[in-house]
Every structure is written in structure tokens, then in C-alpha cells.
């Protein structure tokens, strides 16, 4: 993304890149959530949190234009959802590649760039060279150069996730939608990928909306948090939303927000609470 939009330039745009106003979604006759107001500015890192089945991924689908809203307004980059094309990058919920799939990581990234183009690619020409350069550049940005030429099924979970983020970034989107990108990664990889997304967001000025299961690995990178629960949303900066009082009210169960030694907040559920299965993770996510 070198040579792309500068963060300061993007910040100056007064209009938010993504705006939901009184939005409601019905799936199968059931209202998942309603009255959701959300504004995301350029270069902002927003997490969508909440219990399982509350409609977090559906929110992403709404922004992509794959799910219509039942009420309210949705505006993506000043237009209707699904009409922004390559200006919105999308990384769906964890998909695994078969270990025997004989396609390299770099091919996966490249398909993100030109996979929707018909006809035979010409192996020469300036455009081709530019595209190859772009693929290499974005793979380097996510730190996946070492594994990009191996078959993707042979890469580790963290390496695959980096390559998939590269794929979502390769067309220089202004909004990046990530659906549980940290799921099934080990702890060091979780924080490394979270730091990578934070860096892309703040340095490249890409607005990031990340659906997350566990808030802790991303908490100190976040600009804003959306908590979906009980069919409604609470939205605000982490310092206001990620508090013991707000979270306990949203989850209807005691949730504590503690401070680590260096002052970072950590969300912890009460282990003896019988109402919530799965302990801290279920509460945090």
C-alpha cells in the first residue's frame, strides 16, 4: 500500500466511509437486530463484538450488500451497499484450504486482484508487470513473503490468514471487512495478526470493521467498539463501552474489565456464572 492514501488525507474527509442509520435486519422472519446506528471514518479500526448468533457476520453481509436491511439506511462509501466493488475488501469467516490443494499463496492473492476478469491473461505487457509488483508488495506488507510460493494448504494457520488478508488488500480497498480473522490461531499469531491489521488500518488509512470472538487481542488497537446483544447495539470508544458496567448489562452476567501491568484492559467473565457457557471466551466474544 506504499504510495497509497495517507492517513491524514483520509482523516480530513468529513463524510464517514460507512454509515448505518436505524438499520434493522430480519433473517427467516426473526429480527436479528434493529435500530443500529454506526459511523466509521476513514482509517478507523472498529470491532463488532457480541455473543454467538447475534448477527455479527450478518452486519458484515449487510455492508457487502449480500443481505438487505429491513429498515433504516446503509451507506457504504457514499453509495448503496454492494456497489463499491473493489473499494471494499472482504475476508470471510475462517475457511481452510485442503492440505493437498496445489495452488500457491501468491496465486490466491493474485486471484484477489484479477480473479473476476474473463479471458486469458496475457503473460507480458506493462499491466501484467504492474500487477505482479502489486501482489509482491502486498504480500511483503503482511509479512508473508517467505511462504507465498508454497502450496497454500501447506502453510500454517497464521501464514494462511496473512495471505488471505493480503488477498483482501490487494486492490487497495478503502474499507476492509474481516470476519473472525483471529479464530483458530494460536496466541502469538492472534496478537501478530491483530497488530498487522492495526498497522494497515492506521498507517494506510483503511477503515477496518472486524468481527471478533475475543476482544482481548485487538482491544488496544481499537478506535471504536460495536457490541451487539439483545437485538440492539451499543457503540462507542473502547474506554466507554468496554467497562465492567456496560458489558455486565449487555451480557446479563457479571463481566469484569481488569488492567494489566502496563495498563491494557482485559475482559474477563466470571467463571462461576452458570448462565454463560464457555467461560471468558464466550463472554468476551
Amino acid at each position, binding site marked *: 500500500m506504499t504510495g497509497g492514501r495517507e492517513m491524514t488525507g483520509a482523516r480530513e474527509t468529513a463524510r464517514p466511509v460507512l454509515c448505518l442509520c436505524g438499520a434493522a435486519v430480519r433473517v427467516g422472519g426473526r429480527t436479528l437486530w434493529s435500530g443500529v446506528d454506526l459511523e466509521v471514518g476513514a482509517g478507523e479500526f472498529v470491532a463488532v463484538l457480541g455473543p454467538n448468533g447475534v448477527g455479527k457476520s450478518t452486519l458484515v453481509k449487510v455492508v*457487502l450488500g*449480500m443481505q438487505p436491511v429491513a429498515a433504516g439506511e446503509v451507506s457504504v462509501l457514499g453509495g448503496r451497499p454492494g456497489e463499491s*466493488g*473493489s473499494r471494499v475488501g*472482504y*475476508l*470471510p469467516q475462517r*475457511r481452510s*484450504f*485442503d492440505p493437498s*490443494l*496445489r*495452488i*500457491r499463496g501468491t*496465486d*490466491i492473492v493474485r*486471484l*484477489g486482484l*484479477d*480473479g*473476476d*476478469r*474473463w*479471458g*486469458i*491473461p496475457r*503473460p507480458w505487457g506493462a499491466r501484467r508487470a504492474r500487477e505482479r509488483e502489486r501482489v509482491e508488495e502486498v504480500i511483503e506488507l503482511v509479512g508473508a513473503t*517467505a511462504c507465498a*510460493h*508454497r*502450496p497454500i494448504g*501447506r502453510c500454517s494457520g497464521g501464514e494462511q490468514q496473512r495471505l488471505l488478508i493480503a*488477498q*483482501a488488500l490487494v486492490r487497495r480497498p478503502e474499507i476492509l471487512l474481516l470476519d473472525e480473522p483471529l479464530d483458530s490461531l494460536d496466541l502469538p499469531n492472534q496478537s501478530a495478526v491483530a497488530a498487522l491489521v492495526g498497522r494497515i488500518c492506521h498507517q494506510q488509512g483503511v477503515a477496518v470493521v472486524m468481527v471478533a470472538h475475543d476482544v482481548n487481542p485487538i482491544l488496544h488497537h481499537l478506535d471504536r467498539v460495536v457490541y451487539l446483544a439483545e437485538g440492539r447495539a451499543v457503540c462507542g470508544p473502547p474506554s466507554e463501552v468496554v467497562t465492567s458496567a456496560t458489558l455486565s448489562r449487555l451480557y446479563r452476567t457479571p463481566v469484569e474489565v481488569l488492567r494489566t501491568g502496563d495498563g491494557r484492559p482485559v475482559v474477563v467473565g466470571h467463571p462461576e456464572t452458570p448462565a454463560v457457557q464457555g467461560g471468558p471466551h464466550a463472554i468476551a466474544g
Partner: protein
Amino acid sequence: MRLLAEAASGSFSWNPVTDFQQMWAYPFMVNAFRAGAVVAVVAAAVGWFTVLRRQTFAAHTLSAVAFPGASFATLVGIGAGFGYFGFCVAAALVLAVLRRDGRPGGVEESAATGVVQAFLLACGYLFVALYKGLLTGPESLLFGSFLGITGGQVAVLAVVGTGVLAVLAAVGRPLLFASVDPEVAAGRGVPVRLLSALFLVLLGAATAEAAQITGALLVFALMVLPAATAQQFTSRPAPSLLLSVLIGLAATWLGLTAAFYWPYPLGFFVTSFAFAALLAARAVQALREASARRGPTALVAPTGEPA
């Protein structure tokens, strides 16, 4: 499979020029080589996507459909080609309808595909039973025949083959995208479901072509073996596709040559050569991995791909 050696005499000289001159002195051999080339190229190219999409069971079903197709054509007295193409493409459309989300794989898809396969095989058996006259023999429908291919047949194969390759070239990249990464492809506006149905039709047409040469049961030799072999050698899409075509072509022509000089069935030779290539690819892959495990001084990267 008829034995070519019965029809022609001559001995193998290990000199390719002399051998080809000897073989091509017979017009039926020229047609056999032409038809073999068309079928090998089309089957290998379509088969490459089939292997990548994990749709070999669908390919197997469509090849089984070639048998009722050909026997039905014989029964009602139309050209076998109509039977092959008609049945295979129709079965491909049925499979496309039975698939729900247009995504490869899945237990439900296997079950539905299996049901179609069993029913159509039974139909083939019925058609053979109904046709009480001298059928060319289920054997040649199942195991193919290189003898007596007419120039007209070669022309039909070439026209259909060109059409299949042209469509494949036009949709190749989105099809690759939809095959390895259907969700993101759909998010990018690639018509994943439509491509999935279209690919099944291409697969049906390619299977119908191959079945006329290798027979219904040995379509796999040309459809799956070259692609599986090529994907062992390299994971770069374009070279892998090209290699797959070359392996298919080589196996077919070598098989034809062998069947001309030795009194054994052609299908056996083609399949054996393709299988030998797969074994060789596996061996090379195993050696690469072994040498990579031996230490960081090894010249080859751990996965067998140049870094």
C-alpha cells in the same frame, strides 16, 4: 477394445520416424491419432479443473452416463455421437440442478451424484437388453475403440473440443477463483453458481468426447490421471495446466503406438502410461521432500517448490 495389432502388421523399430511412417500409412491410424490428440487435450484441460475442484466423482458419473447414451443411440438407430453428447450434457445439467450452493464437495452432493449414476447405468443395461440385434458389444462401449474412426467423427470431436476449450479459456480465471475460494469470489461478483453449472456442462461434453475413444470406464485415464500428475509436479496454475495437457497427449499417442505394435488393448496401454507418469511424479515428490528433510543445505525448498 479391439486389438489394433490384429489389423496391422509390422514391427517396432525404436526409430520414431520409421514407426510413425509405418503407422500413418493406414488412414484409420491417422484418424486415431487425430482423434486421440483432440480428446487428450480437451480431457486434460477440463480434468485439471476437475481435480482442483474435487469433482472427480461427478466426472466418473458423467463417464458412466456415456454407456447408456451410446446404447440408447444404437437402440433408436441414431449416430452414437448424439447419444454420447446428449446423455452426458443432459446428466451434467441434472447434476447442476441437484447441487445446492454451487460449491464443490459435500456428502449430499456425493449421494445425489451416486443416485444419478446408478439409475443411468441401469438404463444403459435396459437399452442393451432391448436391442436384441448385434450390438457393437457393450465391451467397446465400456472400454472404447480406436478402430474405424471416420474423418467425420474426427471433425465432430475437433469442433466440440474447440468449443469446450474456447469457453474454458474465456471463463478460466473466474472459474479458478470460484474453485479455490468460492466465498471471496462470490463477494467479488463472480457468478459462482452459474460457473459451477457451466463447468459441469463442459465436463459432460469433454467426458462424451473421451468416452468415444477410451470407452466409458477408462475416461478417468485421460481426465484425472494427467491432471493429478501435473499438480504433483508444480503448483503454478499455468505450467501445471500445460503439463497436464502434455502428459495426456503423450500417454494417448504412446498408447496408440504400443497398441499398434503389440497385441494388447489400447485402453490398457493409455491407462498404464498415465499411471506410470503419476507414480513417477509421486516418486519425484517423495525424493524432493526427503532431500529437504535432510537439512537446510538441501537445494530444494521444503515443499518441493522453488522458493
